[in-house]
């Protein structure tokens, strides 16, 4: 009996130390000094395992520090249900504004409705929900795919065989990027889509898929459009191993550091830059304005930019 108490006491102690240690790292800012009242913004992100999302969040933190705003960040781990619960808890904490990076178009919508009902401004960043938020900051995914596919079409002179790698089937980004790509394909009737298949946003899966396609189509392949850089880099690896990279154009989206490096080396022909920093800082800026009751833009669209070897330097940090 005594032993049990001892172990439970010591584990409680251990647990509290652990929790204290963890919380220090996330909200390092000390208590608000001088101003007395500091704005608090709740942030829920799609997934902190995704590099682009982490970049958006880093920009938010930077902007918040500069503006003296306190951020409370939580990770929805790709679960819309979790995200709605997180927003509910923000409402209960009476934050001044909420920034949400939605997991899903429909399933994350209740979060928006609830925040608006509680009269707390909610800003969607990066992707959309079907319910209309206070403001939207982000880019149009359809546009990114148009830019990428257009580059392929022009490089091939409007004629050739193309392969497309999807992200997770059914996700908003996948649907929109497919839509944009198909719009361009329609404009170029001599551009033929040989096959399209999911690589689940994953480099290893993209690589395996490309290896199998090489077996299927071999030298017929003229270009590959991957819906993100990870899969694009997988395709590049498979093509290089098969000695085909010189003959095939690979274009993807996101411009992650590895992608930019590959563009620099010339293995990835182009990627499309989605401006994470702009999205992050504009989101915080809009949230602050909305919380203070100042004028703000209902929809801030940050344009995509095509990155090739020629204009690479301005994207490399």
């Amino acid at each position: 009996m005594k032993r049990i108490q001892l172990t439970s006491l010591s584990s409680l102690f251990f647990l509290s130390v652990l929790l204290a240690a963890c919380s220090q790292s996330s909200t390092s800012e000390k208590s608000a000094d001088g101003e007395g009242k500091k704005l608090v913004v709740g942030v829920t992100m799609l997934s902190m395992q995704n590099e682009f999302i982490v970049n958006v969040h880093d920009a938010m933190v930077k902007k918040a520090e500069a503006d003296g705003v306190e951020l409370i960040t939580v990770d929805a781990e790709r679960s819309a249900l979790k995200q709605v619960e997180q927003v509910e808890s923000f409402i209960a904490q009476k934050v001044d504004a909420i920034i949400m990076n939605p997991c899903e178009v429909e399933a994350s919508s209740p979060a928006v409705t609830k925040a608006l009902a509680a009269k707390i401004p909610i800003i969607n960043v990066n992707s959309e929900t079907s319910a209309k938020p206070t403001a939207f900051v982000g880019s149009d995914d359809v546009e990114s795919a148009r830019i990428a596919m257009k580059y392929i079409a022009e490089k091939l002179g409007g004629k050739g065989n193309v392969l497309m790698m999807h992200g997770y089937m059914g996700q908003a980004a996948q649907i929109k990027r497919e839509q944009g790509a198909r719009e361009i394909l329609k404009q170029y009737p001599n551009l033929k889509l040989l096959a399209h298949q999911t690589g689940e946003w994953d480099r290893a899966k993209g690589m395996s898929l490309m290896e199998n396609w090489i077996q299927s189509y071999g030298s017929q392949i003229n270009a590959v459009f991957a819906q993100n850089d990870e899969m694009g880099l997988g395709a590049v690896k498979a093509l290089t191993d098969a000695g085909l990279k010189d003959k095939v154009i690979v274009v993807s989206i996101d411009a992650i550091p590895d992608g930019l490096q590959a563009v620099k080396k010339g293995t990835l022909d182009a990627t499309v830059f989605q401006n994470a920093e702009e999205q992050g800082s504009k989101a915080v800026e809009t949230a602050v304005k909305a919380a203070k009751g100042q004028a703000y833009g209902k929809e801030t669209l940050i344009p995509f930019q095509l990155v090739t070897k020629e204009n690479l330097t301005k994207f490399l940090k």
Partner: protein
Amino acid sequence: MEKDFTLIKGDGYGVLHMRNIGKYVLLIVLVAICIALSMTTPRFFTIQNLMIIVTQVSINALLAFGVTFVIITGGIDLSIGSIVAVTGVVAASFAHADTYPVIVPIGVGLLAGLLFGAFNGFVVTRTKVPPFIVTLGTMTIGRGLALILSKGRPISNLSDSFNFIGGGKVLGVPTLIIILVVFFGICTVILKKTVIGRYMYAVGGNEQAAKASGIQLSKVKMVVYTLCGGLAALAGILLTSRITTGQPNAGAGFELDAIAAAIIGGTSTSGGAGTMIGTLLGALLIGVISNGLDLLNVTSYYQQVVMGVIIIGAVVLNSLKQPSN
């Protein structure tokens, strides 16, 4: 009178025969699917494509070998996918070009995996918590560690020598295939030719009998989980090398593919039975189907359905070979 001592029921001769047929069920299924694919697409049965299949299968197979050891002892390890991520990230952080010789990232990565596995074994043997729960916990812990160590970002710019181990070729044969063959041999020998291998079957087949025979259960289990962690680490290092980057979200869901390969291969979920050749065939079956469906350009929605049907089918066929008593 001597004849009366002959015991009538199952003296072994008749059933031995039955058993041998059962052993080949999976091989027959695999060959049948290969023949079917060869007839539908000429691109399937080429040396190059077959090498690609084995290459793609190798990482899953290595994980499946590890988990086969564990399942044979009556346990389970759900944390291997996370070990892949942790060891991949750890290895990658020591593998940048012009830093350490290639042996360092390999050594450090393997050590991390062995320690992780040993931790699983420690908790499983020292507490009465079932392995399913223990490794479910360490699965999450591992994923978290990978994210902490990498700060959520992929680690790239790895040295060429590191990228060679999982992505190179020796005399035209991909290194992954060579490594797979070597470790298939090692694992088979461990399981069939060593005392510890025998004890794995004993512990999983009848824990009480093993105990009464003087076998130290906790030692056997420690070895098994550590071994599984080590093989997962190897898989993690090879994956990192193959995709030339250490990714904190790598290996998600790999544990299920590995367990599926082991079970398709005839490893008994209740322990005590299983072979490495079965597991290898199981992994190959999954790989062949996935490759074949890509070649046939089957839509991803249908791919998942087909894969599920074939997994269940293989296990059902496998179960037919068990005598119903």
